[in-house]
């Protein structure tokens, strides 16, 4: 490439790269969540992927714990009642946890399964002495849209929409919040959420 060509070469930031930065926005938003809303990360995260009837994909999922293991705890791969796959990550340090989520997503993309990635789920809990007001707020990160939305499940496949809207409005300066309320899809019955670590 000529020097002139190099000068005018445009290298747009790859969308994947900028979206990964958006995921990390949760690391800096965490202090607000903890300080203002008394929400603490649970030390776990899940990456949700759509099913694909392909031997290569299933072999990749089987291989994933080995691929991602090495540092931190070994991730687990689960299937849920919707047929979706979950990669469950555990890491006490929140920023490291988010980096693990990024690594997982990167592994999917490197093998050409990036399109199967749906969302990353990052659960937060209130640390309250009163068990009746203890609640779970799930921050859902949508990989393709690169945005977050809160999901507060209640018993009986219900959700606390008022609280979700309120907390999203509060966090919109700190996080890339999904603006279209129509895209705030719930995820009922996440298999790894209820088990105690």
């Amino acid at each position, binding site marked *: 490439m000529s020097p002139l060509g190099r000068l005018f070469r445009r290298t747009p930031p790859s969308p994947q790269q900028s979206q990964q930065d958006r995921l990390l926005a949760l690391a800096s938003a965490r202090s607000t969540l903890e300080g203002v809303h*008394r929400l603490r990360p649970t030390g776990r995260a899940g990456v*949700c992927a*759509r*099913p694909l009837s392909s031997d290569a994909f299933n072999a990749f999922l089987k291989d994933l714990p080995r691929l991602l293991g090495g540092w931190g705890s070994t991730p687990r791969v689960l299937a*849920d009642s*919707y*047929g*979706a796959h979950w990669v469950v990550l555990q890491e006490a340090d929140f920023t490291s946890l988010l980096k693990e989520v990024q690594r997982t997503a990167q592994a999917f993309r490197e093998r050409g399964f990036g399109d199967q990635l*749906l*969302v990353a789920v990052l659960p937060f809990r209130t640390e*309250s002495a*009163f068990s009746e*007001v203890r609640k779970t707020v799930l921050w859902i990160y949508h990989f*393709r*849209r690169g945005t977050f939305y809160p999901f507060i499940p209640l018993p009986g*496949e219900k*959700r*606390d*929409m*008022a*609280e*979700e*809207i*309120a907390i*999203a*409005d509060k966090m*919109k300066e700190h996080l890339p*919040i999904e*603006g*279209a*309320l*129509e*895209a*705030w*899809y*719930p*995820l*009922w019955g996440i298999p790894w959420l209820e088990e105690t670590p």
Partner: protein
Amino acid sequence: MNLQARRIPRDWGLLWRMTLVMALLAGLYLAFITFLNAVGVPWVFIAIIAGLMLGFQYFFSHKLVLWSLGAKEVTPQQYPRLHAMVERLAVQAGMPKPKVAVIHTDIPNALATGRNPKNAVVAVTTGIMRRLDDQELEAVLGHELTHIKNRDVMVITLASFFSVVAAMLTNWLMWALLLGGLRRDERGGMGMVMLVWLVSWLVYIVSQLLILALSRYREYAADYGGAILTGMPSQLASALLKISGAMARIPTEDLRRVEAANAFFIVSALKGETLLELFATHPPVHKRVERLRRLQQRLEWGR
């Protein structure tokens, strides 16, 4: 159950602002009367007519309002759950149970009217009953009962007394100027009439703004009182959001099911205003929800 425990604590900031608005309104009206007196307008005569008008409104407006909305009073046999809710809330608030009316329309709304707790009516539309669950409906009824308890009809009627006088003067003098003004020879008299017209018009505009502010504060006060009464501010917040239509846009179908159904799920096909725009068009709901949320937090954490 100890009913005293449910006594409504005061929201001092709101009370202070409400007092300020009422003081401004009183100051405005006093200046107006002084002005009318100074220029020789028989304001006592006008005040008597305005008083009669407002008196009529005060005693009969609730009937007019309900009649114009097509509200029908209902018996406990027709709407047992609604009646039971109103009764329970009235007992908790320590006030007589108001009459209950239903409006047959799908537009979600609720209102309370009546000059005092003894003559009060609380009305809800069939639309609001269809959309809200029991706890949310109870929160809305709590808000309406607080309006009755705070005697908001009386407060607003009193606050608009001289506003009505100003409006009447503006109206009459405009016609007088248009029809009879040309016959006048005296230049001074003509100028005076115009001055009175102008001042009345200004008083009317300013007082309307103040009354609007006052009724907004009464809304906040009713939100507050209603939330304390039911002990569930978040339910009222949820009801407000549902009525505003924001809730209807949040999907209930699972993401994984949606994604499975649409293999070519086109992201940009999703339309809709952003959260920011939503709140730009509905600032009052947003603000009310925020206040209720803070109150909820205080109730949860403050003990």
